């Protein structure tokens, strides 16, 4: 029988919103903020001029004046590294976002239209997927010379196919969802369906992957520059710096270590942010 003598215990505990809880959930944003500062206002972090030659004190160890010593031309290493990581990260983001955009359009069109268009686009994707980026970069460099354009083109060209495949797979599944039918019945064009309806569903996974790929791009870019195919001196770029440094390894340990640490920091940060985005995606999955 129904029997109720009490109001019923209020179980919902008070929401304890405190700084520790917020910090533990949102700290990767802080990480992103730090990198943004480095990219946008490097002067704030490194007051020294990375290009200032000072032949009096070449290969000087860390001191009060030069926190991390100088390189073989007397330039402040810390400043060079800060400008270098700015270059690396900036270019990597450019490459990955570019590749993601191209890949999304191609994968989206292939998945939505199917048929011969799908076949054509996917076989093209397969061709690009087969290219090793290193060989491609060397080939382009031998044609038009090394430099920023060379590496950007080489890396973007081999990066977009991964996105095309991923997006196509997702679009194939998403377009069977009932709301896509509803959109068609409301007169929405296929392009608008991709942009207005499917993109919001693609973005979470895309952003997590983009974030992770930035880390890989930094490594690839650094490697290409180390081989001399990327940034040319005197542009500070981490790979180039390491290339200059490795011959002085035994006399100036700080010269190779510091740029390496910066690369490590950049890559780790991208992994952390990517991981964080993925956990956030899972929790808001509808």
């Amino acid at each position, binding site marked *: *029988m*129904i*029997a*109720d*003598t*009490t*109001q*019923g*215990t*209020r*179980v*919902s*505990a008070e*929401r304890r919103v405190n700084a520790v809880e917020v910090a533990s959930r949102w700290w990767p944003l802080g990480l992103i903020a730090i990198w943004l500062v480095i990219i946008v206002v490097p002067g704030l972090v490194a007051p020294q001029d990375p290009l200032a030659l000072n032949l009096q004190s070449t290969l000087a160890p860390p001191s009060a004046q030069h926190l991390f010593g100088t390189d073989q031309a007397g330039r402040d290493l810390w400043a060079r590294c800060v400008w270098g990581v700015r270059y690396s990260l900036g270019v990597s983001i450019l490459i990955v976002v570019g590749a993601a955009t191209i890949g999304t359009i191609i994968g989206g069109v292939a998945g939505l239209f199917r048929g011969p268009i799908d076949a054509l686009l996917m076989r093209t994707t397969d061709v690009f997927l087969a290219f090793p980026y290193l060989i491609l970069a060397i080939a382009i460099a031998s044609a038009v010379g090394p430099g920023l354009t060379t590496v950007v083109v080489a890396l973007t060209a081999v990066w977009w196919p991964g996105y095309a495949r991923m997006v196509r797979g997702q679009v194939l599944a998403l377009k069977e969802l009932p709301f896509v039918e509803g959109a068609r019945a409301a007169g929405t064009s296929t392009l608008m369906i991709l942009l207005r309806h499917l993109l919001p569903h693609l973005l979470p996974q895309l952003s997590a992957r983009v974030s992770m790929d930035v880390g890989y791009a930094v490594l690839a870019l650094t490697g290409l520059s180390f081989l001399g195919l990327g940034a040319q001196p005197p542009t500070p770029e981490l790979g180039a710096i390491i290339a200059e440094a490795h011959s002085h390894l035994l006399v100036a340990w700080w010269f190779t270590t510091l740029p390496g640490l910066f690369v490590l920091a950049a890559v780790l940060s991208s992994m952390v942010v990517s991981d964080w985005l993925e956990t956030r995606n899972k929790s808001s999955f509808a």
Partner: protein
Amino acid sequence: MAQASVCSVSDLSVAYHSGDGWLQAVRTVSFDVRRGEILAVVGETGSGKSTTATAVIRMLPANGRVISGSVMFDGRDLLGLSTGEMRKLRGQQIAYVPQQPMSAFNPTMTIGRQVAEPLVIHRGVSYTKAAPEAGRRLKEMGIHEVTRVMRSYPHQLSGGMLQRAMIATAMICQPRLLILDEPTSALDVTIQRQILSLIKQVQADYQLAVVLISHDLTVVSQVADRILVMYGGRGVEVGSTQELMTAGRHPYTRGLLRSTMSSGVEHKSRLPSLSGYPPNPQEVDREPGCPFRPRCARAVSECGEKFPPGTFQDGHGWACYNPEPLS
């Protein structure tokens, strides 16, 4: 038939932990089920009916907790038993048929294996020894081509056949209490009727105590002996089917009956309807008093302060400060 109570639930309250706090899904619900009767627990979204059932057999999801109350079965409080003891009861003494027969079976095992499984687990017999018993049960449940069905996989059978197989699985150890969660909701209309009469027949043959959970009052009224109506996590009315269908006292019960289709209504006319929507646990948490108040035409000032105490009259009970008059 005033028989002994097989299972007695008192003041059961269940809550779920979600994100940052607890949401109470069931608030101090009490009822009992007797031998040889079908008790239907009827409610809509947010009523807490499924949560009540899963709490009784202690199969709440990981974030669910029973925060108060007791469930007496055979003189023991099920909530106090150890996991091992509870496991011995499930499938043997207390059987549970989950929603959606299509998804409740393991798609990689044949039906025969799955129907015999309770016997294999609880009585320790091998599958070969248990198989004939499984076949007998399936036949009892109205399946004709028993051998073929036993060798089939779930995806090869229709919803109605699967539901019959599911009930056979539940009955194979001859439990004393059978709980069915929305047994007909996923089935076609023509099959629904058949399954309901099957349930009635099984109950009569074995003198079972049956708890039937549903959102459809008209469907259960065909087979239930007594009905418990739930709303917003509370029990709001309980009584015999006859009483509730003709002389329901709670405004929600009456409103539900009025807004369902009946043959006397004029073609294309406006149907009497309840305004508003069933509340979710967050909404019930925010407002003290009766969860039905926002939609109730008979609400009085007390309704907003405290949930009404129950009034009982010959086995018919309701929780309302201003119940519908006897028509």
